[in-house]
């Protein structure tokens, strides 16, 4: 599975809860396996709906902002730069995404493309933070 373009992501930490005594207790051993195909299907659809290299640009921006491993993407186009800026802001403080940043995005992409890219940001942000603290 490649939810966000940079490799396998483990979801096991989704299925542990910290008990009152401080121990990590597994909630359900089958949960990881059970949800895996659903998460894979969603990730694949999101990735394929993102135009051009934007799926990779988003993953790169978010993983960079979280201090996770990332790959370099050379020579961002103005459209990709607009995506990169919003993705970084999305992960640091989503309330800080400005109207001008969003206007720049709309100059280059239509609404279905933007919906797909925002979904990609949500997945990469959530799973990246999970990886960071898990």
């Amino acid at each position, binding site marked *: 599975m490649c939810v966000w373009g940079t490799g396998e992501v483990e979801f096991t930490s989704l299925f542990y809860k910290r008990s*009152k005594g401080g121990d990590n207790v597994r*909630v*359900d051993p089958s949960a990881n396996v059970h949800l895996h195909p*659903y998460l894979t299907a969603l990730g694949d*659809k*999101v990735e394929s*709906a993102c135009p051009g290299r934007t799926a990779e640009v988003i993953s790169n921006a978010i993983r960079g902002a979280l201090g996770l491993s990332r790959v370099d993407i050379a020579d961002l186009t103005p459209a990709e730069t607009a995506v990169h800026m919003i993705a970084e802001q999305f992960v640091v403080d989503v309330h*800080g995404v400005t109207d001008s940043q969003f206007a720049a995005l*709309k100059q280059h992409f239509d609404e279905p493309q933007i919906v797909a890219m925002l979904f990609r940001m949500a997945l990469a942000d959530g799973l990246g933070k999970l990886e960071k603290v898990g």
Partner: protein
Amino acid sequence: MSTTPRLAPVDPNARSVFGSILAHQPGLAAAFFELYGEFWTVGFSTTRRRKPHGCATRASPTADIDATFASRSWSSAT
């Protein structure tokens, strides 16, 4: 921060909310709600967590798991 919706809904008569925005990507929305539905209906989140105010619930395929966790003090777990 924006105070107005930034994306228009597919249906011009609809309000610009999460669901109407997702209609721009129906296949993607379907995949999202399949995952969301599975997560919330097959017991990976306990009944006690889902319905903390004691709402009546029907028996689920994971009732035994729910029962196990209902006997613990999960409401204060972090």
